[in-house]
């Protein structure tokens, strides 16, 4: 189990968190490569269906940020 890595589906608001993730890059902060980012126009766009779908398709976690 030690080399098991979670896969995390991430919904980021275009206006804030997505920009923050860009800034993390500009600042060359290093973080684990387990996140797959889906850009949404607003975290309000994230329907509960998306979260369920992500889990159903094998995501180990879902992160909504906005």
């Amino acid at each position, binding site marked *: 189990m030690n080399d098991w890595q979670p896969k995390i589906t991430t919904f980021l608001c275009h206006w804030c968190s*997505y920009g923050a993730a860009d800034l993390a*890059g500009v*600042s060359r*902060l*290093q973080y684990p*490569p387990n996140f*797959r980012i889906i850009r949404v126009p607003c975290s309000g*766009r994230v*329907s509960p269906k*998306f979260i369920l779908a992500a889990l159903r398709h094998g995501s180990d976690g879902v992160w909504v940020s906005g």
Partner: protein
Amino acid sequence: MVLSKTPRYIDESRCTSCGDCAEVCPVLLPSEYDQGLTTRKATFKKYAQAIPGAFAIQKADKAPCRLACPAGLNVQGYVQMVKEGKYKEALQIIMEELPLPGVLGRICPHGCEDACRRVEVDAPVAIRDLKRLAADQFDPREIEIPCAPRREERVAIVGSGPAGLSAAYHLARRGIQSVIFEALPEPGGMLRVGIPEHRLPRKVLDQEIELIRNLGVEIRTNTPLGPDLGVDDLFDMGFKAVYLAVGAHRGIELGVPGERAQGVLQGVDFLRELNLTGKVEVGNKVAVIGGGNVAIDVARSAVRLGAAEVNIIYRRTRAEMPAWEEEIHAAEEEGVKITYLSAPQEILVRDGVVAGLRCIRMELGEPDSSGRRRPIPIPGSEYDIEIDQLIPAIGQTPDLSALEDIAGLEFTRWGTIEVDAATYATAREGVFAGGDLQTGPWVAIGAVAAGREAAESIERYLDGRDLAEGREPVRLESPVYRPIPVDEPKKPRAKMPELPAQERKTGFSEVELGYEEEIGKEEADRCLNCGYCCECFQCVEACGADAVSVETHSRMPESVELEVGAVILAPGFQPFDPSRFETYAYTSHPNVITSMEFERILSASGPTMGHLVRMSDHAEPKKIAWLQCVGSRDINRCDHGYCSSVCCMYAVKEAVIAKEHAGADLDCALFFMDMRTHGKDFERYYEAAREKHGVRFVRSRVHTLDPAEDGHSVVVKYSDEQGLFVEETFDMVVLSVGLETSEDVRELARKLDVRLSEGAFCLTDSFRPVATSREGIFACGAFQGPKDIPQSVIEASSAAAEAGALLAPARGELTREKEVPEELDIRGRRPRVGVFVCQCGINIGGVVDVPAVRDYAATLPYVEYVADNLYSCSQDTQEAMTAVIKEKDLNRIVVAACTPKTHEPLFQETLVNAGLNKYLFEMTNIRNQDSWVHKDDPESATEKAKDLVRMAVAKVALMEPLQETRLKINKRALVLGGGVSGMVSAKSLSTQGYEVCLVEKNGELGGQAVNLFRTWKGEDVKERLETLIRSVQEDPRIDVRLDTELVAVDGFVGNFKTDLRSGGKTDQVEHGIAVIATGGREWKPDEYLYGQDPRVVTHLELDRKFLEGDEAVKKARSAVFIQCVGSREEERPYCSRVCCTHSMESALHLKELNPEMDVYILYRDIRTYGERERLYRKAREAGVIFIRYGVDQKPRVSAGKDALEIEVVDHVLERPVVIRADLLALASAIVPGDTAAVSRMFKVPVNEDGFYVEAHAKLGPSEFATDGVFLCGLAHYPKPMDESVAQAQAAAGRACTLLARDSIQVSGTVAYADPTLCSSCGVCVDVCPYGAPSFVSEGPFAGKAEINPVLCKGCGLCVASCRSGAINLRGFEEGQIMSMIEEI
């Protein structure tokens, strides 16, 4: 107007903001953005989110060391390279000018070090020794010297000293071959024969001559000029030009009797013989005459050759001695005796041989032409010494014997050759000369420079070009350099390791051993980088996008001339620098920081990534103190009498955020005089800080900060409100620094002839708050007066409106229509996806395996074309993409590159150019969110990139072309409210050329201003108001509707239909925008005997009495003001903002009317923000008495027999005080008018106090979230006249951004509803902040939801909240997002 534009030195259009240039830049500077808490490079971006993202280079004038060097070596550049351990690069920089780095690295007298500004901190940087270190660490022979293609012409050079060698080197680089004719058996000139080996090992010289020979230079030794070889002979031999550089090798005689005796040998002759043969005859007792380096060289050589006694005789003192101090010191160490203030008079000769020397003592007289004090013989002080060898070394002169007869050459009276100062051309065509032959004995680097210049001249001569053009010497009158940091720590200059003195005498081993690498790097790190950028050009090497080059580096400031109709000044403020207050220990204590620094510490992108620590030991603080009014409200120490307006609020905010970061146990204390939280919702925040977050507020005066014993904490010593002296220790102290106008901005104001106020802010008028004293120039923001963001943004829009009014007649004149190719109809076609994967130089390609990602993309469904680009955003790639889209008939595009936030519009334009709808595009971020953040895990980064591309391809295949709805704009405006705000707004819209319907519910215009007496600046309100009303009434574009009410509003931005009712009749007005200026009113108090006793009045009532000249007021013996009546209480927990200032004005007016009157102001906090503080000071000076009360101990008012009796508990005395007064003025709150109806009709929100809620507290203060509806004045929040006027103009200015257009185009990314699925629940209507969804009113789908695409902002809130799945969002359709989720 003429602007001076500083170049960026980087081509903005090519820069991809990857930062590779900054990575290699060696120059570290404090980061202004992080308030100096971190560093940045000279190549930099101000902060990570900066727009445009392109980097820039900071430069000042060329560093003083570089200017001081005769050859102009880029000293700062190579010093920085040495600091980085990049010795090869250091040599490349040095050898741009100088082919002899190891030689000059030893023997150069380093004029650069004399110019080094580090001396102002401690001692100059050891520049020469660092040059040597570079040459020690990397063999200069290995440096590749770029040379132009070889030409046919050959040049003869006479003399192989530094001038000749340099000329040959620089000619070779220009492709011109030369032959050097050298008289002596070995090349090198004075470098070889004038300098003993203990200073310059032969090997070093040989190697560097070798590198010159390697360029094809031929050196013929033992070939002197003479009868057999003259200049004519050289031309006859086919040389096209001749360079004469024979040096100055003849020693100057002393001119005393006995100089021909045996045992007298010239210093230069002594050294030449020694250097060429390895030996020379030396006496037992040697006297050396002179004080230069030659004298020292001779003396030190004599010691090595076995002389028992070596005595240097010098006629001045050590202070005047031209030899280098380290040389003199070394000579003494080696046993050389130096006799100062003595001169030879006669050489005592016995049998033709030197036997002694008669000397005379000297004393120093007046300074001579060289600035040194002239030595004067002391009569009768002669004395004799016994010697057997005398070596004069008082100077050299060129030996002209072989040149004198050459036709066409001219000589000076000092025995040197005559040449043109810039071109080094002699009087004879084709013959050039330089070096010591031209200057007389001078430094080697001077000869090197002369050689280079001669090479330039010779090339021009061979080309037949003008020799002099463009070579005039440039002299900088007052160069501008990086200021030396005040806190630059002292670092001692590195000592050069030396051979022990006892080991030196036995031979000519090199004495100076050279720096160890680490020591050298540290030494180089002492460089202050005077010029900022050091021009090492490492960035040029590093930039893969060709955005920075030697050409961009050499750009000059540009003068830009603009023809403009208006100017807006928004130069901002500078934070007050507390360094000048010793009591605050800011410079001496690391844990005393400014609020600006604290902001950075709290920031996630700051120096500690938002981790709250103190700077001295990075420990988490447990107690933090804020000191208010640092640099504000202080005329004793800093000359800033004004209040900076923003510090109370930001300090409260900082304290709350600090507690949020560090947890509730963090103790935050604010030391303040008056808490000024007068902005909208600020008072609530202040209350929450105190009550909910437990921030302590200490009303006090702080007098000193002292370091605590633990070495980290700070002891705050202050007096509390009762005047008691208290000490408390904190881990950290934050100085809440104020705002001030910088000297630069004051200078700008002087240049523009714009008048400033007492506090050095821009002087403006309350009725034109952004107009400066000069017509057509407007000011906004903190330059207009200290203020916060909302007010600054209001003024910004206000200034835009003022400028717009001036420019209205010219509107649209300079606009150009963009040509767009016709869009292809791709409906019904199978997706053909093109995937472009960007390398971004090495930014993506260095981590992610881009070819692998590209090849992987080719395997995905619908993908027809894949490519990888070095820089996808470059102009040529854009063109190539357009072509390939057309050629391959692609109809969906994916770009895997950087972030869509900056680059999506660019690629969308490429699609449009290729005839595709711009929404058939998906961008995926494999740089900012992949390669940059997973640098150490290329494998995972590549996998992630593949996943992201797969997700993007899945989504893009489902993308459909979207239409951007166009909507016509009705250019008429509706302004609701006929007060000052409404009228100013209407007037502003009308001057910009738009028709306005101004609706006022009462029978007259003027609103609350009718009751006002004066503004805080002293302007007469009545007079100005009448002018305004008249101008509105007379304006043909303004349709004034009095006694009119709003009945109904229909429509939306650009197309409103509003029903108005007047006198029982209703009519409809169509308009494109609406400004809501429904105002506010004074609260009628229910306390303090108001309404019961005629002596108790409100502010407005008192103003009316002033206007009417009421006699009773004048006769009052005593007047009292009570502040915060109805404000800052539970029922109305906001500050009414204007009342403190109003009371000051009224109190001062009472004192004007009757100076004998006793005037009291009972207050909770005095909030005379900004320059209004002056009124508070004037009131105190006028004798107004201020008594503070607490909200829990409010004053009590009773009607006494012949006066009112007001009892208040004085906070200082802690005892009740009774004041008898004839007049009591209540500073009553401002409450909004009736906002409920308008709020409902225009679908705009109001807050719990009844004021309207703007779109954004900071960035959208004059508009509603609902498009096309704007607000201003008291309806927004209580505010004084000048701020109401500014906001009224701002609302008009914002409205004009819509009215100026014939139509608006909305984004294609909007929500849409399917009425067949809609269950009419209404959730979408409720959740939408923009009022876009509504119910269909008629037809088959009546009652179902529909969404107005014009109002929709595309957030998708309604989509996610729709329980029927009836709503979807174009561009982010459910199916599209699901397809991405499925591909994860």
